[in-house]
């Protein structure tokens, strides 16, 4: 059995690889160098869920160097058609709201899939996404208000990476 220890160690190391290298930002965002400012894309986060029916809320963030506006594209699911009017992000005492723009609506696996986009300033996004208090998303529709929350542990992991990305894009904000 002792002879097998190096092999077993290798196997377990590989299994633990995602945990060991959780701060590897490659899996968190992508950067494309281009004329007029690099474009940064923070990959979709699906850690949030509805506080009532636990349906998923998925969002991603696109930022562009030298641009004060960021775009959040998000998906939520409802049993009845429920188009979004605005998206709010709340973190502690801070809250920001923006109107939404429809990307598409689809009917998938017996649920309505709504995909929308909302624009926020870099300042507001930084306040919401780097706060130690887990943020909450609220989608305002015609008939209801849908709230989505995240577990504290997952949020801590997310903001640790998001904070690094913010520093990469806007180092002057940390001076």
């Amino acid at each position, binding site marked *: 059995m002792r002879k*097998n220890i190096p092999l077993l160690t290798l*196997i377990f190391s*590989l299994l633990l690889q995602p945990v060991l290298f959780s701060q590897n930002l490659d899996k968190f965002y992508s950067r*494309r160098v281009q004329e007029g400012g690099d*474009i940064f894309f923070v990959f*979709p986060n699906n850690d949030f869920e509805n506080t009532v029916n636990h349906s998923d809320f998925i969002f991603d963030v*696109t930022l562009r160097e030298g641009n004060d506006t960021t775009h959040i594209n998000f998906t939520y699911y409802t049993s009845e058609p429920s188009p979004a009017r605005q998206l709010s992000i709340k973190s502690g005492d801070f809250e920001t709201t923006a109107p939404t723009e429809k*990307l598409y609506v689809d009917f998938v696996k017996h649920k309505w899939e709504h995909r929308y986009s909302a624009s926020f300033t870099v300042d507001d996004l930084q306040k919401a996404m780097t706060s130690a208090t887990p943020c909450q998303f609220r989608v305002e529709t015609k008939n209801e208000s849908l709230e989505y929350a995240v577990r504290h542990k997952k949020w801590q992991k997310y903001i640790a990476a998001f904070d690094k990305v913010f520093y990469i894009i806007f180092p002057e904000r940390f001076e």
Partner: protein
Amino acid sequence: MRKFIALVLIAGFMSGCAMVGAPVTGFLYTDVKAPLAVTSNAGSSKVGTAKMQSILGWVATGDASIEAAAKSAGITKIHHVDYEANSILGIVASFTVVVYGE
């Protein structure tokens, strides 16, 4: 020792089933990015992704088409397309298409 060999054979069987397509792949671990397509359209301000996954090579789900990725960000003019392929010991594998455009 027999149990260990059986375990390795089972793991090998499973690994072979859940590999992900890429120019280079690792039998034990794969984490690669590569280009998929490029067009003559200029610049990009939007990014969209689409993903498919496989577990043990037994179950595979998802829509990682360029169309799905473009649709997720409202992209109508594609600039270029990359993809990312990941797999761990053939247990889980994923393939993500990333579309850049306007």
